[in-house]
């Protein structure tokens, strides 16, 4: 539990979260959201929650990003805000 590593990844997670919301292209948002989920799973493995990070890696980051990209392909990448 090295708190410097924990703090660094936490700031990366917050940055990825804000970026996923503010980026102007939905596909970019989907990929950034995947990155956000993978860093979240890294954070949990640091905290010792190995089962949760395994689930987040496969369920949260893996399949959610696939659903997002599939949905964005079936709708539009254009966003106004």
């Amino acid at each position, binding site marked *: *539990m090295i708190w410097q590593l924990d703090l660094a990844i936490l700031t990366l997670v917050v940055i990825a979260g804000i970026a996923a919301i503010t980026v102007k292209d939905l596909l970019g948002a989907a990929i950034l959201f995947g990155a956000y989920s993978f860093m979240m799973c890294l954070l949990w493995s640091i*905290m010792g929650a*190995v*089962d949760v990070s*395994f*689930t987040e890696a*496969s*369920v949260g980051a*893996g*399949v959610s990003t*696939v*659903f997002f*990209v*599939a*949905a964005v*392909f*079936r709708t539009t990448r254009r966003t106004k805000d």
Partner: protein
Amino acid sequence: MKIIGLIIALSTGVLLISATGDFPGWADPASPASTHLSPHFIEKTMEETSVPNIVTAVLADYRGYDTMYETAVIFTAGLACFILLRIFVREEPEDRLYRHVLTGVTVRVKEGAKLPPSDDFERIDATWTPPDLIIKTICRFLIPFIQLFALYVIAHGHHSPGGGFQGGVILGASIILLAISQDLRTSVRRMREKLDAVLCAVGVIIYAGTGALCLLLGLNFLDYSALASVLHCDPVTARSHGILIVEIGVGIAVMCTMIWIYNNVSSTGKYDEGL
């Protein structure tokens, strides 16, 4: 609208942060959360369920009722995507794209007419992608090993991190990989929609059915020690086997739901051209 959102978010944030005032310090061993219930789980798991991975033991046995409902949530999501998106009868027939395998010439057939099935013409998606041999062969080569690893994850949930959900999703992901690298029609040919939907229900029925079996054997619902008489072993190992059966049920349910949701979302219910 932005101001209202900002005010709401800030006010809830201030309320939540002010409420963290009395929290125990971060990760200190004497916090109430670490001294009330969890010592029992950590110390008694080995005696009561002989499962080394405490999280799997608590997940499938102590709080197995929660996990049954969570599998029901996944099943409900699959059913919801099916009922929302699936279209059985299509209004206007779309035209189809075919490619001549040897020369790579593409043929467009209008108004839903079909080419007679012959092996030198292969059907391709409307959002046409160039024939990429590398990805197709590598994926076809990789998928069996992904599925092998997923079965290991499900079976080895007792001793190492893993279990029904993670294994089920990886199994589902292998079929989705097939759908992305080839095209949706090959993956639907491998995993028929009818089989997929019924297996979804069967997975959750395995979970709830094991619980109901314990009910019929006299003890309370989901009390795996009742399976001792059926599995001819002492109640503690009966619990461990009960957890394994339940994890298999969860794995099947999660796999089929992920495939079901992907097929419906990526083809908006038409089941012909996926991602």
